[in-house]
C-alpha cells in the first residue's frame, strides 16, 4: 500500500539542536576534539570517544575491529544519524526503530528503556511515529555481521533545516577526517565551528606544530623553542640569530604573543623560554 506523509512539525520548542558533541575542548583549540586519525602516534591507547555525524551507508561500510569499528583510517564508535522512522516496535525492555536516511536500507536503531516505575508515563520514552524524522545518537554495534545502532539519545527533528545541517556536517566531518590522516604534521580535524587549516599555509614546517592560528614568524619561533632539549629553555637572542631573515623586533613580538597565549613560558630569566606543550 502506498503510505502518506505525516510530516508536520512537532509542537513548539526545538528538540536537539545539533549533534550534541560530547567532547570537552582539546588542549589548544578550545573547540572540538578530533578523532585520532593517526592513532599510533598518540600516547597510550586513546580510544575514539568522538561523536561523528554519519550516514547509514557509512555505518554499513565500517569494518569491525576488536573493540571498535574502523572507517577508512579512523576508529569510530559514537555516531549520530538523522533519518526517517520506517518502523517502530516497542518491547518490554527496548524500542526498536528502523531508520532510513536514503543512503541505504533502513538501519536498526535500538533504544533501551528505563523501566523505572517512578518515572511518570508521560516522561517515559515515547514512540516516534512512522514517517517522522529523528536524530539518533549512540554506539555502532554489529552482531553476526549485521550492523545496528544502540542509541543513548533519540530526539525528534522539529526544524527540517536540521536535516540539511546534518548532510553538511557529514560531508565536512568525513572530509576533515581524511585530511587529518593525510597531513604529515598531524593537523587536527575539527568538527563544528572551530578554525580549520585552510591549506594556504605551507605544511613543510619542521616540527609537529598544529594549526594554532599562528603567523609565519610566530610559528617558526615556537617550533624553535619546542625543539630545544635544554632544561632552561631557549635564549631569545639565539632565536634571533638563527632566524636571520626575521627582525629582532618581530622575534620579540612573537615571543610576547606566544607567551601571552600560553604556548611558552619564561624560565631562568625573561630571555629564556620553554614550550608548554609536551612533545
Amino acid at each position, binding site marked *: *500500500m*502506498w*503510505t*502518506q*506523509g*505525516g*510530516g*508536520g*512539525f512537532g509542537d513548539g520548542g526545538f528538540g536537539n539542536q545539533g549533534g550534541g558533541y560530547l567532547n570537552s575542548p582539546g588542549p589548544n583549540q578550545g573547540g572540538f576534539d578530533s578523532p585520532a586519525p593517526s592513532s599510533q602516534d598518540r600516547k597510550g591507547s586513546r580510544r575514539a570517544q568522538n561523536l561523528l555525524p554519519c*550516514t*547509514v*551507508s*557509512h555505518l*554499513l*561500510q565500517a569494518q569491525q575491529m576488536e573493540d571498535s569499528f574502523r572507517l577508512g583510517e579512523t576508529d569510530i564508535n559514537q555516531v549520530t544519524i538523522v533519518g*526517517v522512522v*520506517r518502523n517502530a516496535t516497542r518491547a518490554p525492555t527496548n524500542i526498536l526503530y528502523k531508520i*532510513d536516511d*536514503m*543512503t*541505504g*536500507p*533502513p538501519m536498526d536503531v535500538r533504544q533501551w528503556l528505563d523501566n523505572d516505575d517512578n518515572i511518570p508515563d508521560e516522561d517515559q520514552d515515547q514512540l516516534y511515529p512512522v*514517517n517522522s*524524522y529523528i536524530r539518533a545518537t549512540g554506539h555502532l554495534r554489529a552482531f553476526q555481521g549485521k550492523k545496528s545502532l544502540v542509541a543513548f539519545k533519540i530526539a525528534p527533528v522539529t*526544524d*527540517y*533545516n536540521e*536535516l*540539511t545541517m546534518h*548532510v*553538511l556536517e*557529514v*560531508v565536512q566531518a*568525513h*572530509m576533515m577526517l*581524511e585530511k587529518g590522516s593525510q597531513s604529515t604534521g598531524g593537523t587536527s580535524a575539527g568538527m563544528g565551528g572551530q578554525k580549520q587549516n585552510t591549506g594556504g599555509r605551507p605544511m613543510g614546517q619542521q616540527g609537529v606544530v598544529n594549526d594554532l592560528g599562528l603567523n609565519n614568524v610566530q610559528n617558526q619561533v615556537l617550533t624553535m623553542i619546542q625543539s630545544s632539549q635544554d632544561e632552561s629553555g631557549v635564549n631569545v637572542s639565539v632565536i634571533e640569530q638563527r632566524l636571520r631573515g626575521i627582525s629582532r623586533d618581530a622575534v620579540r613580538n612573537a615571543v610576547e604573543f606566544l607567551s601571552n597565549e600560553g604556548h611558552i613560558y619564561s624560565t631562568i630569566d625573561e630571555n629564556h623560554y620553554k614550550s608548554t606543550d609536551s612533545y
Partner: protein
Amino acid sequence: MTMGDAFDQPRPRVNASMLPQHIGKYVCLMGEVMDVDQNGLMFAVKTSDGQRVQINLPEPLEEMVQGAIEIVGEVANNCQISCQSYILFGADFDMNLYDEAIKLTVEHSKFYPLADSSNF
C-alpha cells in the same frame, strides 16, 4: 513495485538537473508544492533548483499538501516522478541551502556515499 523495493535501496538526494541521470531509478527529490490536480493523482513541485517537476501518485491524495515536500519515487523516462511516499516539511525549510548541500554530496560523494549491495 512495492513500498519495500524503494526503501531497501539507496535513494540519492537529487534536484531537477540531476533527474536525467537517474531515469529508471529511485531518488529522493525535494521541492515546494505548486499545484495539485483536481483528481489528486498528480501535483507539481518547484524543485530545490527552481525547476518544475510533475509528481504522479498511485492513489489519490487524502490530505492537502503544501509547502516543502520530500518525495521518494522512481524517475520516469520523461523525468516525471512516480511517487512512493512523501513527507511534508512545512514552510520554514531553506530550499536554497538544501540545494547547495546536495550538490556538495555529489561533488564530494566520497564523503557522502550510497550503500552498495555488497554491504547490506
